């Protein structure tokens, strides 16, 4: 049986506000290997509060990998070293006793830092507002399965629909590009008959908004796919490009 409790050295990004210069600060924490990464930060914060210091601000909500709130770069990797998981699902058993862990916020000019590890991701909301939806007349609900969609197609669209909008793709991209996020939504809707009528306007408008927000260009490093907690494929980006070209014909 491995050690149940480990001592860790933490280097945590502390920044008072959006315009203030931040820095990495050193902390030490003792934590159960069964704890999650966010629980480890909770323990650190309790300790800081007891000492009368300001706790570390970080975003979290569901803590079960579906809400897309948690957003930490752990040892240089968005959501940490474990593939296909958000950082809330990362457990301390993956770290060694005495290890140093560096924790930084998402870094992109389109995601300005609010405080410490919290960034403003409303740029994503504006990309979605630009066209990542289906316009329908509200009223009585239509019958289930009134539009038949093949299983393969439904599965394919669903793979792209699993995006939780966490922004890890932007955080990990060497260019801070939002192509995977934008491409996933465009591809999901383009594959389904419900998304078909608005597909041309959608892709042009969302791609334009992505650029307006100040995200970088995609260089096909594929780092986004590697850190995506949902493992969304960069085929979404290729499809976005096809959709973009087709939208002009």
């Amino acid at each position, binding site marked *: 049986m491995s050690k149940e409790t480990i001592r860790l050295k933490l280097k945590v990004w502390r920044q008072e506000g959006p315009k203030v210069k931040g820095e990495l600060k050193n902390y030490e924490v003792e934590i159960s290997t069964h704890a999650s990464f966010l629980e480890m930060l909770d323990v650190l914060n309790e300790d800081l509060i007891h000492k009368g210091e300001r706790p570390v601000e970080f975003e979290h909500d569901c803590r079960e990998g579906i809400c897309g709130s948690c957003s930490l770069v752990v040892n240089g990797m968005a959501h940490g070293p474990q593939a296909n998981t958000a950082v809330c699902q990362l457990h301390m058993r993956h770290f060694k006793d005495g290890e140093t862990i560096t924790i930084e916020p998402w870094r992109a000019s389109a995601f300005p830092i609010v405080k410490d590890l919290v960034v403003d991701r409303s740029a994503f909301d*504006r990309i979605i507002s630009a066209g990542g939806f289906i316009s329908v007349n509200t009223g009585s609900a239509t019958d289930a399965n009134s539009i038949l969609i093949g299983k393969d197609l439904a599965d394919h669209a669903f793979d792209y629909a699993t995006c939780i909008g966490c922004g890890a793709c932007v955080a990990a991209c060497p260019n801070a590009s939002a192509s995977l996020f934008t491409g996933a939504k465009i591809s999901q809707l383009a594959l389904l008959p419900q998304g078909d009528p608005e597909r041309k306007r959608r892709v042009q408008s969302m791609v334009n908004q992505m650029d307006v927000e100040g995200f970088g260009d995609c260089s096909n490093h594929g780092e986004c796919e590697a850190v995506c907690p949902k493992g969304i494929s960069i085929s979404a980006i290729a499809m976005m*490009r096809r959709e973009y070209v087709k939208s002009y014909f």
Partner: protein
Amino acid sequence: MSNPANAKSKSGVTGIVRKLISGFTGIIWTIFAIGHLAGNLQLYKTDGTAFNQYGHFLESLGGLLILAEIFLVLFLGMHAISGIQVWLGKRKARPESYKLYQSAGSKSKQSLASRSMIVTGSVLLLFLVVHVLSFKFNIFKPADVITLANGAQARDLYKYVWEAFKNPVYAFGYTFVMALLGLHLRHGVWSALQSLGMMKPKFSPVIYSIGGIIAALVAVGFLSIPLYIYFS
């Protein structure tokens, strides 16, 4: 900080258009490089007439050759400009870099090749200028004129190339730059297809591997020539 929704991007050219341009022009130049290499392999025929006849044939195309050259230069310019714009945009999109950054590996295609495109590309651009001045325009040294079997006058480019690559600076300089070309194509070939929207999950691993093979073959093909000449 917050941008109003539905504002127009400043340049009117979106990132996707830049990638389409970069991918298309990159593919054209890769095809050109393969054709160029096929021609250069005539240098292995030691009597030289094959290479000189090939050179003379290209020049005899006249207007067609000039047209092709104009397009190549145009495409190269577009390729370089889009690459520089991506690089500049990246610095703007992340002004403060991570104190610690590492690739998450597994499905990531991030590599020395992908991260050094701007460096290898810049070196290749400078190289191309020197290369064209040397071997196309013979600026640094005039070429001898010979008479071909059909009586036509042509430059003795075979002798010219052999003399140039007996110079260690040229021989090893070219070898080094062609290794960089291999690195550029290692990321460039598959990336261009991805930029043009041609990648699908089913074929991606195969295309990624083929991209590597094309890069290696082109690089080894080109760099073997100066080394062969220098050491023979």
